[in-house]
């Protein structure tokens, strides 16, 4: 069976991007951080965003996920034709938006196994969180990410090393099978093997499906593994340049200064 054919036809017929960000202006406490962002991600596509510290990458991820502290002044964020802006973050999650956090939060006392089951139940439905099928999926995902079984009884992100937190984010992504996965610097803090396993996880979750991913990163290494369809450069709240994977290499060699001149 050709699984790739179905989404292609769907996309052509409906002409709907998976995610569309239109002229997005957003900020916090009256300070504008995002100053008019436009972006389209099609089904099965992986895009990357690069940019200096403080340019607004995490803010964009937070606004997509619906962080209550950020206000949207203008523009729209649309998932498969439906605006997300009026939805609470948990509703967005149930629509298939997933965010791998730059700084995942610890929740002492909340056991990993319990948390995963509850999250799968609320996003994928009770049925998917039950029984042998779930346990098998969980075991396989944990093995592929080299997460030891003992983590099941640990507390969510509590005392996890930097790299363990990132692996745990991707474990959640694999179990939740999102429509849109936003990965905010998931590669930072991961060792070389970690970057490879995470990339494999992302490829498996997106390529050949009608889901999509937005990878925020400072390094071209992860992009060598996932081969993004597009690379965008965010500078001071605006996308100043977009291109293919070669843009990432160029940025890594030359930094961001040259973009400012252009």
């Amino acid at each position: 069976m050709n699984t790739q054919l179905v989404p292609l036809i769907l996309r052509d017929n409906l002409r709907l991007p998976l995610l569309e960000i239109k002229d997005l202006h957003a900020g916090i406490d009256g300070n504008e951080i995002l100053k008019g962002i436009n972006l389209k991600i099609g089904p099965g596509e992986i895009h990357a965003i690069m940019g200096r510290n403080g340019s607004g990458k995490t803010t964009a991820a937070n606004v997509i996920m619906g962080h209550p502290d950020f206000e949207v002044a203008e523009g729209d964020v649309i998932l498969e034709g439906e605006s997300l802006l009026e939805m609470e973050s948990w509703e967005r999650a149930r629509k298939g938006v997933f965010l791998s956090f730059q700084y995942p939060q610890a929740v002492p006392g909340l056991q990993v196994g319990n948390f995963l089951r509850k999250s799968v139940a609320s996003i994928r439905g009770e049925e998917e969180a039950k029984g042998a099928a779930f346990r098998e999926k969980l075991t396989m995902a944990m093995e592929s990410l080299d997460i030891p079984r003992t983590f099941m009884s640990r507390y969510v992100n509590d005392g996890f090393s930097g790299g363990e937190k990132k692996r745990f984010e991707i474990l959640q992504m694999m179990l939740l099978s999102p429509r849109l996965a936003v990965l905010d610097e998931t590669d930072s803090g991961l060792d070389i093997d970690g970057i490879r396993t995470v990339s494999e996880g992302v490829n498996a979750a997106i390529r050949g499906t009608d889901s999509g991913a937005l990878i925020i990163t400072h390094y071209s290494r992860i992009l060598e593994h996932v081969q993004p369809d597009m690379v965008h450069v965010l500078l001071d709240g605006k996308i100043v340049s977009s291109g293919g994977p070669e843009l990432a290499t160029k940025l890594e060699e030359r930094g961001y200064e040259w973009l400012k001149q252009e």
Partner: protein
Amino acid sequence: MEENSDARGAVGEYKAGWHDPENSTIRFDFGLSEEVVREISRLKNEPQWMTEIRVKAFKHFIQRPMPTWGNMSMLEEIDFDNICYFLRSSDSTKNDWDDVPDDIRNTFERLGIPEAEQKWLSGVSAQYESETVYHSIREDLERQGVIFLDMDSGLSEYPEIVKKWFCSVVPYSDNKFSALNTAVWSGGSFIYVPEGVHVEMPVQAYFRINAKNMGQFERTLIIADKGSSIHYVEGCTAPTYSTDSLHSAVVELIALPGSHIRYSTIQNWSSNVYNLVTKRGIAHEKAKIEWVDGNIGSKLTMKYPAVILKGEGSHAEVISVAYSGEGQHQDAGAKIHHLASNTTSKILSKSISKNGGRGSYRGMVTVSPKANNCKLNVVCDALILDEGSRSDTYPTMEVANPTARCEHEASVSKVSDEQLFYLMSRGHTEEESLAMIVNGFFEPFTRELPMEYAVELNQLMALEMEGSIG
């Protein structure tokens, strides 16, 4: 004021807040006097010495001032003349649920007690108003000589044992409320575990207040003989009325050498109940006493489970959680006295306050000069869920022996927006996310409970988080 315009009505539904029509067979007038005390004793056909202790305790109660700690303004609101001190709803204690009057049985069925008994308990005692209405113990334990009775039957069947230990751990003159309890006590549990016997599954007592302006004064005495062990669990609920009820119990534990007593409580009184309880145990050589104490309900709780480490190598643990919502004050803590060498103790106290609720930890640990090489560990954590809520700690340590090793940690934290956002991004509503954080905070306590209670407590807290977010 409407009954359900009560504080907790606004927070979430108080599951146990219904009440039955009151069908009492004996009901005393409101108010307390020496006559009432003597009448209670007479009704119960008690031995002379018990009547005398009651009367002495009553006299002490009258002249003893109110405690000067806790919540003094709430304490002053107690109207001792507007409380019913004795109410009999059933003629006698039954040992078959079918014999318990229908309305009372229904109450306990709604609370799931008979079902729990069948599944996982060694014995059950159910007290309704002043007296125990149902009592049973598994036959194999009875054959091994375990005594598990309501306190009134304990006194009439084993008067010498009761006389030996009654008031030996908590004298009536200990405080105003232990005096009150000693004067008017009724119901509670009497347990004796013979030497070397291990009661594997917990025994449970369930206390239910149904009538308005009721005072419930149960008295519990547990004696674990050498090398024996027992786990006693108590739960309690009451309907939500617009006027206050008073629950004032005394619990005495005697852990003889090498024995182990664990006493777990999930206190879920409705928010119009004053819960003023004295709980204390004496641990003899190498014995171990653990108080696992959860305070979720009530208007004002003042309770500091205590252990006197009297024998060498004995050990005490007090693990407690307190939740204070709107209009509630939980003044809870622990007291441990190291009287002998090589004794160890551990206190873990966790409190959550929300919607203007107030939680206080009041702790006292002492080491006597003669007690060498003692180890003490005290941890108190508070979690404050919103601006108007409050948490205080009043820890006291009096260490009179330089060989003691003491550790003390305290923390106060708030739920962060980032934590909530993280959980919400995983598909959980704000209320669900808050409940996850709160239950996580209580987890070190919850994991000490039997599974069924842990589940119950988690559900209870999830309910408390409902409707709380604007």
